[in-house]
């Protein structure tokens, strides 16, 4: 029997692989090599491959560009060429535990790994040691730059709980999140319940940090958190209470920030989310109108109507210290090491550390002052925080991740799978005799079932034109909602027996599934639809995308809404990713790109990380 810890590890590893192959609708997931094109290496140069957490990819790409053309890139007369790839911290850690497999999908093996926090290095070394392997992350890595974990809140909401004059702590926020009176208890019933947003701690540093902080808040400690503390019944109850107030999880904070920003444009930001644990830098990005911190082509930053402010928890907080881990890995040779050290020296120079500050991080060189944009005009306080929480020992960190898998909010998820005729096409266009797209999707869906916890309610629906002999004819419910612990094998069996049929009534099934979940909404759970489709809407009876989007928006807005998220997976080259993104955004969710059918197992796994 697989233990819970093993299950968590399996999920993390699987998710790690997934994030290497997919990108979310905001484009900030980790694609193959983070979705960034891999630069070619100038002749005679040594490639110094770097995998970095998403929030600093733009900064480091910029620094690598200037380094590569500088004299500093020629240590000992040899040429070093730094290439920066994006990889979320938890994903990078899991890939390294596995020896960084499949470079074609995951990007090149890194010489330098820079997760957001050195805690990931501790977890990496711990997991390697439990597998009988030597440590890979040096324990004396220096921080490249810093940013504290803060609680981001819309300014009026923060003011309603006493900001900026009253010190506010994690315990205050978490108590509010569990108060049945919600914002009504603070004189603002129009804002509805207090909605807490969190990222998945297996992926995201802020998710990991805030989960650690939750446990500290539950114990009243600020250091020396132990595995025994985590096991205490009242601590378990506290953690479950907090998780139950979570809107939904996400692999990375930009998913939430982008959705928050879109809601701000519609005037609904106060009913989307009340508080989100993020790094301080993200508050700056949001307030400058660039919520994910990545300026896409054509994107014009515009400040939001309602800015966020940063609450520095009075109990203390954790810093993301962005270490440069020059890996003790078998694939790193002396020349790569020499080039990496040259780049590390380069980024620590005062002029480059000033660029760090311009990007919203606190400098890793104490000679460089903390100045704008880290200031009060952006909702920040450069003199905060005044206390820090101790990063727990690696074994305790691993236990926290293990426990989170059990304590996280339960989900109620409808799996909606396209069985239109095109799903019978070969997954590999060059291999007519190979597996079909539906074959791969079936395998992926069955694999993903293992990630649900036993009390998650899961249903299975398939769709294609006139698939049902009775009304409604465009979809068919194969397995009704029920705890997956009791029907995992039944769902798997039904999935395995699927065959391709007719066309793709995408809008009809999306709208109907959304309404079905709203009609049977369970306020105690995350209510969501996972919609896998390989095509575009082919239903002559329903071509009205705008009506669908209007209905989805309407169903998710307002303080009394019953939010149902739709997480579409765009599967295969012919899928309509642009439309699926609009559907996802209308429900404050994210779309996932599996245009390469070979990645579907990995993408499915990443989608399930939202629950």
């Amino acid at each position, binding site marked *: 029997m697989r233990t819970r810890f093993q299950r968590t590890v399996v999920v993390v590893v699987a998710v790690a692989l997934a994030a290497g192959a997919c990108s979310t609708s905001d484009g900030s997931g980790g694609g193959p090599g983070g979705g960034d094109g891999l630069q070619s290496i100038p002749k005679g140069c040594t490639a110094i491959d770097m995998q970095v957490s998403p929030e600093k990819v733009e900064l480091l790409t910029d620094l690598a560009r200037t380094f590569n053309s500088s004299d500093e890139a020629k240590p000992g007369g040899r040429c070093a060429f730094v290439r920066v790839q994006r990889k979320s911290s938890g994903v990078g850690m899991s890939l390294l535990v596995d020896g960084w497999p499949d470079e074609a999908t995951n990007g090149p093996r890194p010489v330098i790994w820079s997760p957001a926090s050195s805690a990931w290095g501790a977890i990496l070394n711990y997991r390697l040691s439990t597998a009988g392997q030597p440590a890979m992350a040096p324990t004396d890595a*220096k921080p490249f730059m810093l940013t504290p974990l803060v609680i981001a809140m819309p300014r009026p909401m923060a003011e309603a709980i006493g900001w900026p004059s009253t010190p506010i702590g994690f315990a205050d926020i978490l108590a509010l999140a569990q108060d049945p009176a919600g914002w009504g208890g603070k004189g603002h019933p129009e804002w509805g319940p207090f909605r807490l947003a969190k990222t998945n701690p297996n992926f995201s540093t802020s998710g990991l940090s805030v989960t650690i902080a939750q446990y500290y808040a539950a114990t009243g400690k600020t250091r020396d958190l132990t595995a025994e503390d985590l096991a205490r019944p009242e601590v378990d109850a506290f953690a479950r209470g907090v998780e139950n107030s979570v809107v939904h999880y996400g692999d990375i904070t930009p998913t939430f920030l982008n959705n928050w920003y879109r809601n701000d444009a519609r005037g609904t930001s106060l009913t989307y989310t009340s508080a989100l644990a993020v790094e301080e830098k993200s508050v700056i990005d949001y307030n400058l109108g660039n919520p994910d911190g990545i300026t896409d082509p054509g994107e014009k930053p515009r400040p939001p109507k309602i800015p966020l402010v940063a609450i520095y928890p009075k109990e203390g907080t954790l810093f993301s210290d962005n270490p440069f881990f020059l890996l003790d890995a078998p694939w790193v040779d002396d020349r790569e090491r020499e080039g990496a050290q040259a780049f590390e020296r380069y980024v620590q120079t005062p002029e480059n550390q000033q660029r760090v500050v311009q990007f919203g991080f606190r400098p890793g060189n104490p*000679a460089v*002052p903390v100045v704008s944009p880290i200031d009060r005009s952006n909702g920040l306080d450069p003199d905060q925080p005044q206390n820090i929480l101790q990063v727990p020992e690696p074994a305790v960190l691993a236990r926290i991740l293990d426990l989170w898998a059990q304590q996280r909010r339960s989900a109620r998820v409808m799996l909606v799978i396209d069985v239109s005729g095109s799903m019978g096409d070969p997954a590999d266009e060059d291999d007519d005799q190979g597996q079909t797209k539906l074959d791969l999707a079936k395998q992926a869906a069955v694999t993903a079932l293992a990630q649900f916890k036993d009390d998650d309610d899961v249903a299975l629906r398939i769709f294609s034109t006139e698939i049902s002999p009775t009304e409604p004819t465009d979809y068919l419910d194969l397995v009704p909602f029920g705890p997956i612990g009791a029907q995992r094998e039944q769902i798997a069996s039904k999935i395995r027996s699927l065959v391709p049929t007719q066309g793709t009534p995408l809008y009809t099934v999306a709208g109907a599934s959304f309404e079905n979940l709203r009609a049977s909404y369970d306020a105690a759970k995350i209510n969501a639809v996972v919609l896998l489709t390989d095509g575009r809407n082919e239903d002559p009876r329903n071509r009205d995308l705008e009506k669908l989007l209007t209905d989805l928006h309407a169903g998710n807005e307002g303080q009394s809404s019953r939010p149902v998220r739709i997480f579409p997976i765009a599967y295969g080259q012919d899928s309509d990713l642009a439309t699926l993104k609009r559907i996802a955004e209308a429900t404050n969710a994210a779309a996932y790109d599996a245009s390469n059918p070979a990645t579907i197992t990995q993408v499915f796994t990443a989608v399930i990380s939202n629950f």
Partner: protein
Amino acid sequence: MLAVVGAVAMIVGAVVVRGRLDDRSEDAGQVYRLVCAADLERVCAELDDAFPGRVDVTVEGAGTTADRLRRLDGDPELDGWLVNDPWPALVDEARRSGSLPPLFDTQAAPLARSPLVIVAWKDRAGALATTCPDGKVGWKCLGDAAGRPDAKVGHADAARNGTGLLVLAQATVEWFDGRTDLSTFDLEDEGFQRWFAALERPMESAASSPLDRMLLIGRAVYDFVGTTEADAIKADNAAKRDELTKIYPSSMATADVVLAVTPGDRGSRLREIVAGRARTELTDAGWKAPGSAGLPAGNGLPDAGLIDAIRAKAREVTGR
């Protein structure tokens, strides 16, 4: 006769020259092994660059090296150790008590020294001073204030770091009113043990230097950090230097860097190659020559055995 003398002189000269050439050719193939304490990292890096192919420099925490060597019955895999005094003596005393031969040559003279200081935020020091005897912040007062949110105290890990242990030794001396002739029995004083535990229990085990963390993260992590005056130059260069102050505790003590070498030719040769350059690099890094004006004659610290006992006590308290 003159011809004979000339011939003899030529033969002798040839023998001498040949001998020297032999020595050089023997030496040319030798790579000397220097272990360099991690808290001297910048100096270690310079030495590594200065003698490529001749000196193999390994950077390691002093505690790690000491723990490896104190019970080692075989090749120590080093010819010399650049570290704060009295770490080499501490190793050799432990070896003697385990009936193992000492590893290092007789007492080495310090290459450089630096007073131990406390770097503090001015506002925190000002607030704490009002509660300290004579209004002066020192280690005794810091231990008494431990646990206050505005008196977060740091020093490098005394179990692992060359400087951290000396700072803790200085603090101990101050608690005993400046006495350096302490015995391990003195450390059993109940008042001392309470103060020591209060001071050490909150001590972080972070790998990076406490001063670096203080300067980067600010008051959230440390209000007071004990280190060397040489290290404290970082505070002079920090963006927030105007908010910082250096406190010289009443029990003046110094960190002394020594190059302890193994007995025999390899150790001696390593000393010839490295000592001068190490002295220069230490000076560049803010260390002072022994005997410089303003420095005391001795290091102001207890002997190696007592310092080892302090280390053991710190390990008991922190569990590291």
